[in-house]
Structure formats: structure tokens, C-alpha cells
């Protein structure tokens, strides 16, 4: 039997469900001390001086560090995403602000104390002499002449800017039958993982070695960043990723606190623990998505999209070493998503403001691209009177056109977009909906149906990057007792890829699943890899596991053939027995017999000419990443292009603007599915976070850059009550470029929520020409939009 394709519970379930997981705050070491961070109360301020004497004098305080010391003793944190390589502006970002704080919450000083309470108490005793500077929190204002500068050396607040013309947009607009235009703005959001950030640094002054437990996604990258920041050899650092309570991209390296904690452990010569509070997490744990689009779309009378003019403003917050700002480029790169449109003119601006920096968050800008395209499709449908689904069918890249070269340079690997849309229309009974809607209307209820596609490219590989560099490795070892250890460079922050990889290896080795154990997240034991990002674990780590497993299986098959005095080509494996083909049940050698033979008789006749041991470490890189445009004619960082078709039914209370989601269906194409249970679980999470960003969540600041959403009281997350039962359908178009045909699924489910919910709410109130332009779709915004909407001519009052 094959394990790939089976729903198997996550290998870590029992331990986690029993509350016996080992998260970073569970790490207990003798002599542990605690770090607390003093954060800027100002959005922008010069630090004229810091008096730490009272804090140092507090009983139990071991060390107080300020930016001056950090600036002298450490290096800037290396950029995760090389700004210079793409013509963007960068900054030297240290583990503490050296002379200027640029957003509320930026780390200004740090205390190490014998216990947490003393560390926090000491923060109150640090006297910082701030000179408040003008701040800017609105990206449009930040672009105006004379606006306060986040980085005075830059001369403006533009981190990166791109003017991109593709095809012939002028002709497309001149020859269009019509043009729709509009604006849409997505909210600033964050992932709100159940476990905030945290780390434990333990410096051994005698070995001159650092052990670093980190709630991170990328232990190897953290090791490299820490080594560079601290100026020590990466080989003297061991990074261990314990269980991680959710990451969603926001735990990619590296924030100020990680090198800060490591530095302070070196200073005090004792282990230092730092655990972020929820309030700190909302303040400085990385934000995302805050993007606005002003668009025009040219169309033909039959609904064909022929041209796009686009002004994109991404508010990336203060510049840092984090990779989040790259999301603004990815948004552009995905366009026009699952549709064909060769003519476009895009003005893309990544603007800095005095707010928390962006870090990567599930969706990584792809979600915003899908939102824009689905709004355009709905508007063309409205303008032409053609059914919303029909407009989409008309503009799709067709199934026989893959691999499809998008105008952006992207090469869409495979898919069947109309197939997915048809399937989701069946699931939600699209044809039957008007009758349902009419029936509800008679009962005084207003329901609407929305449709949206999502495109979620995965497995990102950026040239010149030591973080986002698509490759990975997996080692498979079989012990003399016949057990299997898999060590991977990819990691699992709770999404279950260890289980999927074990399934892949069990199949490759033709052995029982129970033999497999998986080790992840330890730089000392696991081979090099970039960890968990861009839904790469199964496509890249899984592919490396597949080839490593295949290699060992080939060796075992040869040894078994020698033991059975047969040809390896004639060997098959039935119930872990290597047998001569067609002779199952009549002799053969077992999995453990072969393992024992390899280890115990390396010089025997069955091992003649065969390398000893059963161990293989194999690397994987995707063949369809294009980094040599001069030779390959294109640049494409994403090798895997999963997509989905979403359909939502909502009930709108027009008096209050309150919305209840009644049904949510998603048909997802993640290629070959390794574990349907875990794929669905990932999709449930993605949809839930998508609905959060579409309808509930927003990080808000006032004009002076003071945050308004300091707690979950103000940063509204959906609960189980707000979420409908999620209905998942699958379409499997195997990826042509991975051994198993797998695609990523970790970020899927997010993108489709945004457009489908806008679409559904507008559809619920056909008597007004409702245009929803800003996420999240809060009751007050919907109520305002209803009040401001024109009543279309001829509509019944």
C-alpha cells in the first residue's frame, strides 16, 4: 500500500494534545536569566542619552544594554532580502536603536535580570532622553513633498519604486469597449500566532559556543544571521527549534530580539530567556498586507480583459532587515494571476512610514494580487452585465496552455482554472442560488453569493539570498535494527510536514510507517536547509526526501537481490518482504534482514561492490526556477503555482452592516496530495486567517504613529463562532517539476477569501450599486457603503 495520499494524523498530535510539547518557554536551564526590552514610546525620536544607573542598581539586575553599546559591539543584522540587488534602499539595522527610534516599539534598551518580574521592573527605571521628531504614518502623506522622513539619508520615503509597461496598454485602452476603474485597499494585519516570539540563548564561555533555542521557522538561517551579527563563527552556534505554536511567516529571521538575547548571554555568561508578551507581539511582531490599489481595467463587450493600469502603494512600515517588504513586489509579480492580459502599466511604490516593519505573512502579497484581480473581474461583470463566472471563464489561462508564460516573467507550471471554478460552482449550487436568494428575501433575509479565484505561487527562490533560496536537503538513515531516521532542513511550525515527509519516505523505502522518525529544527543534527517558508516543505524538502529514500531503496533492493540470488530488476517488495517477482508468500528477505545484512556483512558476498551503510543525504532544487534572464529569457522565482476557486454565501443585515458567513467552499489544486487530512487542516487555517483579514483584523495607527490596536480587544480576530463549516474540494493537477507532482498548500485558502467575501456582500444587496473598497469589511464600513451607494437606475426602491 501507498502512504502518500492517505489521511494520517500528525505525528506530534498526542504529545501536543496532552500539553507535553516543548515550546521555547518550556526550556529550563540552570542559572537561567530573563531579558526584557525597553521600547520606544514615540513613532520617531532621537535618543539623546540613556541613564541606566537606577536600573543597574535594582537588586537582581545583571546587565543593561543600550544602543550605543550594541552599535559598537555588534554588526548590523544582515538583510534577509538583499535590497541592493533589486534596486531598493536599505538601512543598517542593529539589535537596539543606536541613535534614533523609527516606530513605536522599536527596541531601545534591554535588561537582563534574575527573574522576569525584576527585568520588567527595571525597564521603568531606565531614563531615556528622547527628542521627539516628526513622524509620518500615512503612506500617501509620506509621498508628499516635505513629509517627515523615516530615513533622513534617503531624501524621500520611497524604499522601492517600479514603473512597468508590458505589451501595449495605450492601444488596449484606446480600443476598449469600456473601462472600469476603482480603488481597493487591504488592511494592515498580523498573524497573531498562539505562541508569540521567544528565544533562549546559552553561551558557554569555555567552549566559546552558543546554544540558541528559538521559536523560529529557519534555524540554519538564524545561525548564519546570529554569527554575522555577533561576529563569531557560525560553527560555534547551535540553533534548536523547539515546538512552535504557529509562525505563518512572521517568525522568519531575524528581529532585533534574537541577536540581542544572544549578545546578552555572551555578556552575562549565563542562559538568557526572552519571551514576548502578546502586546509586544501586536506592536512589533511584524505586520503585513497594507496595500492600496488604484486601477483601471479595459475590457471588450464580451468581457475580455484587455488592459490594466495600476497604481500600487504598499505601506511597508519602517525599513529593517526583515523580508516582509518583498511582499509588495510579489503582489505585482503575480498579476494578472489566473487570467490573461498582456497589456499593463503599473506604478508600484513601496513606501516607508513610522510604523512596525512588515515581515512575511501567510499570503506574502499573493493574496492582495488575487483581491485586485477578482475585484476587476466583478466590476467587468457588473459593467457588461455578463455573469461573474462567465467573465472569469472568458479570461482564464486555459488548461492546455501550461506551462504558461505570464507577462511578468512568471511561468505558471500547471493547472485547470475553469475546472476548479466549475467544481466550486457545483459545490455551492451556483445555478440554484437565485431561487435560494429569492426565498430568503421573502423571509426578509438578504443573502449573497460571491466567487473568487486565488493564485498562490510557492517554493520561492531569490538569487543572492541566504534566506529565501529555494533549495533544501533531507537525510535518510536506516539503523542496523531497521528503523528509519529522517533529518530535514525544512521545519514544521505546527503544520505537519514531518508527517507528510515520513509518508513519502515510507513509500520510497517500501517500509511500514511505524519505522520512521523525523528530526527537524536542529542545526547540529539536520542537514542545511532554509526551513519553512513559501509552502516549500513538501515540494522541496519532500522531493529531497523522495530522492534520498529512492537511493537507499535501490541499494536495499540490490542487496536483497544478492541475498536471494536474483536480479535486482526481478525484486518486488510485498509487506516489507523483498521477494522475487511473482513469488510473494514463498520466501524472501525482510526489511530488517536486509538492513542487518548491510551493516553486519559489509565485506560479504551480498555487499560486493556496494558502498557500506544505509544513509543518504540528498539535495533538491526546482528545475523551473529562472535566475538567468539573459540566457533563459525570463526571471521567475516561483516554481510552483497552486490555485483555488472559492465561493462564499453570506447573510447581510443591511440595517447594521453585520455579516454572517453562511457557507464557504474552496476547490484547491495543490497537485498530488500527500496527506488529505493535513492539507484540509492547512486550508482550514488559511481560510480562517483569510476571513480574519477580510472581515475583522486591522492594525491601526493614529496620525502621529501611535498604535491604536494594542490588545485583542481592539485587534479583532474571528472566533469559531464567526466561521462557517469550511467545505473543501480538491482538484489534483500534478506538478510537472516535482517527483510526486506535489505543489505547496501552506498559504492556500487565504487569497480567495478577500475577493469572494466582497463579492458576496455586494451580491446580497442588488438594489444598491455597492462598491466595497476597504478591508476589513467591518459592519460600520458596510453600513457606510450602503448609505453612500447609488441606487441603480430602474431598480426597485
Amino acid at each position, binding site marked *: 500500500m501507498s502512504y502518500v495520499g492517505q489521511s494520517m494524523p500528525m505525528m506530534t498530535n498526542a504529545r501536543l494534545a496532552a500539553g507535553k510539547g516543548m515550546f521555547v518557554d518550556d526550556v529550563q536551564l540552570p542559572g537561567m536569566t530573563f531579558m526584557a526590552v525597553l521600547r520606544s514610546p514615540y513613532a520617531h525620536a532621537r535618543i539623546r542619552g540613556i541613564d541606566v544607573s537606577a536600573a543597574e542598581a535594582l537588586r537582581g539586575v545583571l546587565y543593561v544594554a543600550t544602543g550605543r553599546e550594541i552599535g559598537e559591539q555588534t554588526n548590523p543584522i544582515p538583510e534577509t532580502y538583499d535590497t541592493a540587488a533589486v534596486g531598493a534602499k536599505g538601512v543598517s539595522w542593529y539589535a537596539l536603536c543606536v541613535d534614533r527610534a523609527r516606530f513605536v516599539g522599536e527596541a531601545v534598551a534591554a535588561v537582563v535580570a534574575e527573574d522576569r*518580574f525584576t527585568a520588567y521592573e527595571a525597564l521603568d527605571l531606565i531614563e531615556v532622553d528622547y527628542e521627539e521628531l516628526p513622524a509620518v504614518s500615512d503612506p500617501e502623506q509620506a509621498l508628499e513633498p516635505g513629509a517627515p522622513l523615516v530615513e533622513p539619508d534617503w531624501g524621500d520615503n520611497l524604499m522601492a519604486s517600479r514603473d512597468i509597461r508590458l505589451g501595449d496598454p495605450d492601444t488596449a485602452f484606446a480600443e476598449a469597449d469600456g473601462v472600469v476603474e476603482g480603488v481597493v485597499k487591504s488592511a494592515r494585519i498580523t498573524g497573531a500566532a498562539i505562541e508569540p516570539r521567544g528565544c533562549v540563548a546559552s553561551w558557554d564561555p569555555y567552549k566559546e559556543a552558543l546554544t540558541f533555542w528559538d521559536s523560529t521557522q529557519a534555524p540554519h538561517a538564524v545561525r548564519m544571521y546570529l554569527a554575522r551579527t555577533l561576529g563569531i563563527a557560525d560553527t560555534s552556534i547551535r540553533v534548536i527549534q523547539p515546538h512552535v505554536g504557529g509562525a505563518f511567516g512572521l517568525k522568519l529571521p531575524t528581529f532585533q530580539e534574537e541577536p540581542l538575547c544572544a549578545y546578552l548571554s555572551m555578556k552575562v555568561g549565563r542562559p538568557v530567556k526572552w519571551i514576548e508578551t502578546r*502586546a509586544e507581539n501586536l506592536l512589533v511582531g511584524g505586520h503585513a498586507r497594507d496595500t492600496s490599489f488604484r486601477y483601471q481595467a479595459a475590457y471588450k463587450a464580451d468581457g475580455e480583459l484587455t488592459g490594466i493600469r495600476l497604481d500600487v502603494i504598499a505601506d511597508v512600515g519602517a525599513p529593517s532587515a526583515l523580508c516582509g517588504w518583498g511582499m509588495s513586489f510579489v503582489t505585482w509579480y503575480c498579476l494578472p494571476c489566473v487570467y490573461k492580459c498582456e497589456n499593463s502599466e503599473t506604478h508600484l511604490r513601496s513606501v516607508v512610514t513610522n510604523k512596525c516593519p512588515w515581515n512575511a505573512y501567510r499570503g506574502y502579497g499573493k493574496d492582495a494580487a488575487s483581491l485586485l484581480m477578482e475585484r476587476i473581474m466583478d466590476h467587468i461583470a457588473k459593467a457588461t452585465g455578463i455573469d461573474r463566472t462567465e467573465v472569469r471563464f472568458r479570461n482564464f489561462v486555459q488548461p492546455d496552455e501550461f506551462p504558461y508564460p505570464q507577462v511578468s516573467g512568471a511561468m505558471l507550471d500547471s493547472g485547470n482554472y475553469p475546472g476548479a471554478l466549475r467544481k466550486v460552482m457545483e459545490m455551492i449550487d451556483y445555478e440554484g442560488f437565485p431561487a435560494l436568494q429569492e426565498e430568503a428575501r421573502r423571509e426578509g433575509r438578504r443573502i449573497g453569493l460571491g466567487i473568487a479565484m486565488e493564485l498562490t505561487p510557492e517554493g520561492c527562490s531569490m538569487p543572492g539570498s541566504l534566506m529565501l533560496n529555494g533549495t533544501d536537503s533531507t537525510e535518510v538513515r536506516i539503523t542496523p535494527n531497521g528503523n528509519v531516521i529522517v533529518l530535514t532542513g525544512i521545519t514544521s511550525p505546527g503544520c505537519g510536514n514531518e508527517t507528510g515527509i515520513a509518508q513519502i519516505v515510507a513509500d520510497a523505502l517500501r517500509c511500514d510507517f511505524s519505522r520512521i522518525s523525523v528530526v527537524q529544527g536542529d542545526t547540529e543534527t539536520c542537514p542545511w536547509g532554509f526551513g519553512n517558508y513559501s509552502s516549500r516543505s513538501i515540494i522541496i524538502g519532500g522531493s529531497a526526501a523522495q530522492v534520498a529514500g529512492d537511493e537507499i531503496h535501490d541499494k536495499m533492493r540490490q542487496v536483497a537481490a544478492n541475498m536471494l540470488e536474483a536480479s535486482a530488476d526481478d525484486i518486488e517488495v510485498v509487506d516489507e518482504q523483498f521477494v522475487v517477482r511473482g513469488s510473494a508468500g514463498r520466501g524472501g528477505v525482510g526489511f530488517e534482514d536486509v538492513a542487518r545484512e548491510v551493516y553486519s556483512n559489509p565485506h560479504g558476498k551480498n555487499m560486493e561492490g556496494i558502498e557500506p551503510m544505509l544513509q543518504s543525504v540528498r539535495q533538491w532544487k526546482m528545475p523551473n526556477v529562472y535566475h538567468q534572464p539573459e540566457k533563459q529569457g525570463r526571471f521567475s522565482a516561483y516554481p510552483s503555482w497552486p490555485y483555488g476557486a472559492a465561493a462564499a454565501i453570506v447573510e447581510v443585515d443591511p440595517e*447594521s452592516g453585520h455579516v454572517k458567513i453562511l457557507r464557504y467552499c474552496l476547490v484547491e489544486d495543490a497537485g498530488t496530495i500527500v496527506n488529505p487530512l493535513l492539507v484540509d487542516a492547512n486550508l482550514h487555517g488559511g481560510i480562517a486567517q483569510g476571513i480574519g483579514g477580510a472581515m475583522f483584523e486591522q492594525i491601526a495607527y493614529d496620525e502621529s504613529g501611535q498604535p*491604536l490596536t494594542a490588545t485583542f480587544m481592539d485587534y479583532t480576530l474571528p472566533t469559531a*463562532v464567526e466561521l462557517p463549516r469550511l467545505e473543501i474540494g480538491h482538484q489534483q493537477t500534478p506538478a510537472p517539476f516535482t517527483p510526486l507532482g506535489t505543489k505547496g498548500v501552506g498559504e492556500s485558502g487565504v487569497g480567495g477569501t478577500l475577493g469572494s467575501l466582497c463579492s458576496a456582500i455586494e451580491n446580497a444587496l442588488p438594489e444598491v450599486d455597492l462598491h466595497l473598497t476597504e478591508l476589513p469589511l467591518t459592519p*460600520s464600513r458596510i453600513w*457606510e457603503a450602503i448609505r453612500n451607494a447609488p441606487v441603480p437606475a430602474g431598480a426597485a426602491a
Partner: protein
Amino acid sequence: MLAAGFEFHTPADLSEALRLLADKGPEAKVLAGGMSMVPAVNLGLLRPTCVVSLNHVSGLDSIDDSGDELRIGALVRHARIVSDPAIRQHAPALAAAASVIGDVQVRNRGTIGGSVAHADPAADYLPVLVAFGATIVVQGPQGTRELPAREFFLGVMLTQLTADEIVTEVRVPKLPPGAGSGYARLARVEGAFAIANAAAFVDGSRCVIGIGAAVPAPVVTELALGSQPDDAGLERVAEAARAACEDAYDDLSGSAGYRRAMAGVYARRAVSLAIEARG
């Protein structure tokens, strides 16, 4: 932010609690369920030097339904108000309001006295208490004061309670035979603070509406209404509610205009519920 150290007292009777408050001065804070105070301390918004817990004070957690009023001890938890048969019978809107406070954990810990003393504008009880004409009983060094709920709440987390007093009881008049009550609220998600909430008390042609969340302190308005009001009658309810909410405020959940409009919508819904629920 974690709290710095503070004194913690667990008096066994009310007089000891009052003495502690008198001794320690205004920096001493009273702890009941802790569902508002503990988060405020953890966030660094409140830094008490002394905390006096009422959780061991006897006699504050009873519900007495023997008279014309329900006498609800200040330490009665929300969960008990949801399920108590006397409250469900005699003040059903109060039970309805309690049922949507926070989540299960909050309802198991939080107390009616704490909610009243804290006086968060969005608290679910407040519109019910003003609509019913409840009385807040407080005790202090000068003795007992019985304060009408309609006068007790002064503004955002501001009441007539002085620093040396403790809310000991909430008295809610029993619904007369044939009268009805209802509670309705708008919140973004289950368990979140209300954007607007309203309670209605309907007895014959008398219709009393309490409105909270939209305004800094609960307001009350009264009008005469037919026994089966039509749309125009209900629109008069909404109009009265909007007019009572001149002080509606802005925040991330909605503008003052939105809040005022929602006060109207939810007042009307509360009245409809009250009419349906009439005995």
C-alpha cells in the same frame, strides 16, 4: 508588561475590607472576578500598590427573590445570572445580557458588582439596569448608600462610587405581570465588547429603553407605545434612542454617527424582543 509587586489582602468580612480601603487610601483596588482589573494590571494601565480581594468575603454572593426586587449580591458571577431561575423569571433581560459577556471563562469568574463598579461603557448589564430602574447598593465608612442606577454611572469608567466604598448589591425590580423585557447588542465577534447595546422594558403602553456602548455612560429614554406597535411605532423607538445618544463616540469599531444609528436599530430590536416576551 508584568506587574510590579503589590500588597494582597483577602479579608473574610466586609467591615475588614472597608477598613483596609480606608487605611490604604485610593491606591488600594478592590478585586472581585478580576476580569477587567487583571488585564489592566498586566497591560501596565493600572499599577495598584494594594489589592483587596472580596473573594473570601461572606454574604456577597446570594440572590434573594423574596421581595418586589431581586437582591443580587455583588459577588454573584455572570454564569449564575445566566442560569438562575429567579433572574430568568423576573429579569430575563439581565440573564440575556449576562449570557453574552466575554466567554465562558469570563462568565465563570466575572461578577455583577465588578462590572457595575468598573463601568465600562460597553458593559452588557448597564442598559438593562437603567431600563429596569435598578438600585446600586454601596457600603463605605459612612454606611450604606442606595443609588439609582440611572444616576450611578457618570462617564467612561466613572461612577458615584468613592475610593473607600464597595458595591455590595444590585437590586433589580421584578418585572410586573404582563410586562416584558429584551436585550440586543451589536458586536463584531462573539465575546467582543458591544458597539451598541440596548435593553427594553415594556409594561402596558410604557416603554423604557436603556442604551449603552454607543455612549460613555448608559442613557435611558421612555415613550408611550401601543401594545402591538407598527413600523412607525418602532421607528419612534429608534428615533428616541438616537436622540438619547447625542454623546455617541468614535472609535475603530465605528463613528459616532454609526453608533447613534445602531442605538436606534438595537433599541428597536430590544423592544421587539420585549414585546414578544411579554407574559
